[in-house]
């Protein structure tokens, strides 16, 4: 009797669990569709001739395979130039922020020196200033430095945003690594920089990678400063390039969206990378907690 009742409850519970599962998946699917819609639409428009863009009823896919948007983008040296600029800028900014930021973070994390707290606080406060308020002063400084309309003007500008971020993030990651590692490595014959490069950075690799991705994307997505601090077409970046397509070339939706898709690819790939790498626990096991 009791047994039968038990079995009954279990079946019921099983059904409830299944129901809950289905509901969760339905909710997730709806949310994903809402969030993915602009991206799906971007891809869809990039695959249709401009005449079909606003056809009613809307169609997700064109009548026939249409890649003209993409081929025209790749054939146009101007767009290749925008891509090249964006990549160059992103890579230089990332490398510089990581190199300088990691060393600064190492100093903040491992050494006490005069004014260290004040310096750290200052680095953090730079992140609190809304960047748009800095646009005019930056314009002045960049012109004064004779860096207006150069890639180095943008590198310098982006570094002022990316570097404090890199310092703060890397300082946070390094602070989570116990000093025992430093000391063990010192005993094993490492110099202070040896400790950083041979032990701390490998242990902090997930942090290093996510910081790198963030600084790259910060530079990749930036629009306002890139627009204000460059003038010639050769100096434009991808976001500015996309915006230029609205006026100068009429409204070629297929090209514009194809370029947007190409511009979004690094973002997508990098986010997937970070997801795989930001699994903490790499440092687990070396230290008994």
């Amino acid at each position, binding site marked *: 009797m009791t047994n039968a009742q038990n079995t009954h409850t279990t079946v019921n519970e099983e059904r409830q669990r299944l129901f809950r599962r289905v509901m969760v998946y339905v909710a997730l699917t709806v949310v994903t569709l809402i969030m993915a819609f602009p991206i799906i639409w971007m891809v869809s428009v990039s695959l249709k001739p401009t005449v079909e863009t606003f056809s009613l009823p809307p169609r997700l896919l064109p009548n026939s395979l249409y890649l003209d948007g993409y081929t025209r983008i790749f054939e146009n040296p101007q767009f290749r130039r925008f891509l090249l600029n964006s990549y160059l800028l992103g890579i230089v900014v990332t490398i510089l922020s990581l190199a300088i930021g990691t060393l600064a973070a190492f100093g903040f994390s491992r050494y006490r020196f005069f004014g260290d707290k004040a310096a750290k606080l200052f680095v953090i406060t730079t992140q609190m200033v809304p960047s748009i308020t800095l646009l005019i002063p930056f314009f002045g400084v960049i012109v004064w430095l004779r860096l207006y309309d150069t890639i180095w003007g943008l590198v310098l500008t982006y570094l002022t945003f990316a570097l404090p971020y890199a310092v703060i993030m890397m300082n946070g990651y390094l602070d989570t690594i*116990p000093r*025992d*590692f430093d*000391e*063990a*490595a*010192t*005993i*094993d*014959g*490492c110099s202070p920089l*040896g400790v950083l490069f041979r*032990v701390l950075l*490998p*242990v902090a*690799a997930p942090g290093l990678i996510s910081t790198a991705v963030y600084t790259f994307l910060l530079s990749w997505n930036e629009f306002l400063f890139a627009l204000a601090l460059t003038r010639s077409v050769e100096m434009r970046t991808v976001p500015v390039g996309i915006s230029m397509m609205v006026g100068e070339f009429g409204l070629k939706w297929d090209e514009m969206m194809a370029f947007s898709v190409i511009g979004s690819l690094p973002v997508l790939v990098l986010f997937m990378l970070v997801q795989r790498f930001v699994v903490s*626990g*790499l*440092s*687990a*096991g*070396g*230290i*008994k907690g």
Partner: protein
Amino acid sequence: MATLELDGIKKKYGELEVVEGLDLSVEEGSFTVFVGPSGCGKSTLLRMIAGLEEITAGELRIDGERMNDATPVERGVSMVFQNYALYPHMSVEKNIAFGLKMLGLPRDDIKRRVAAAAETLQIGALLKRRPSQLSGGQRQRVAIGRAIVREPRLFLFDEPLSNLDAELRVTMRVELAKLHRQIGATMIYVTHDQTEALTLADKIVVLRDGAIEQAGTPMELYLDPANAFVAGFIGSPQMNFLPVTTTGTDAGLRLSSAELYALNVVPDGAGWGADMTLDLGIRPEHLQVGEDLPVRFDINVDVVENLGGTRYVYGSTASGKSVIAETRADAIPRAGDKVTVGFDPVRARYFNANGQRLRHKLAA
């Protein structure tokens, strides 16, 4: 293998003096243990020897050579940490080999020495694993392997066993003693566990508040403590202390207290006098229940701790002093019982109000 000399070694953090002018010499091939309560400066001292902490004043010599400003590698020291501090991104093999790689040794050499160290510590099967895939005891072995593979002049251990469970700690303790015999290197070991100190050390250095209270062989410290602190710190359970007052007699001094009717002592050294209040120290293992010993008094039993082979009786005297006595008899006293405990005056140690030892003639 090496000798180590500390000459007036001091450590200050700002105004705070953590180690105050300390002299010590460590003999070649010896096993020296620093013990003391938490915060007494054991780790700080060890880290100054290692070269991880700057020496504020004094001189540190290894093999007679001044080493105050030398790097750990120049000093030829290796160290095992309480937290193991194995590099998590390297395999066991790479962890052990890291120091040798830093020295720039040829590959074949490194391979051979890692294999030898792994053999000594029986971790050959673990070489390809990551530290996170090891048990606590295995991690500690790897940490020791990392230390021995460099064949240093001086081994330093900072509470290497305190993260292991009780059983493993005993096993590893025995293995460390074996390892010391096997490689014969000079070892300095920090612990706050007096049992580890007694079982491992050739020489124990008892520290308190950054100063040496006493240094000597385990038996010297056990039998002939220089002061009440060392007497209380070495030995477990702790030594009993009973207040007594002195009266002068023709033959020497007579001690009496609420517990002791009269006990004659013959002073052997300075510091004694009539009408003083002293502490009589007697170890639990020398205060036996129901034995027919020369000095006896009664206690009320509070708790009995039965360890199988022996049992400790926690009780209080008529005047309310708590004491611990031992009995090996099979008849176990029970809480609430009144039992007689006794000791041989030869076993008693005396300390003045400042805790300084007052020596007495052991044989009348």
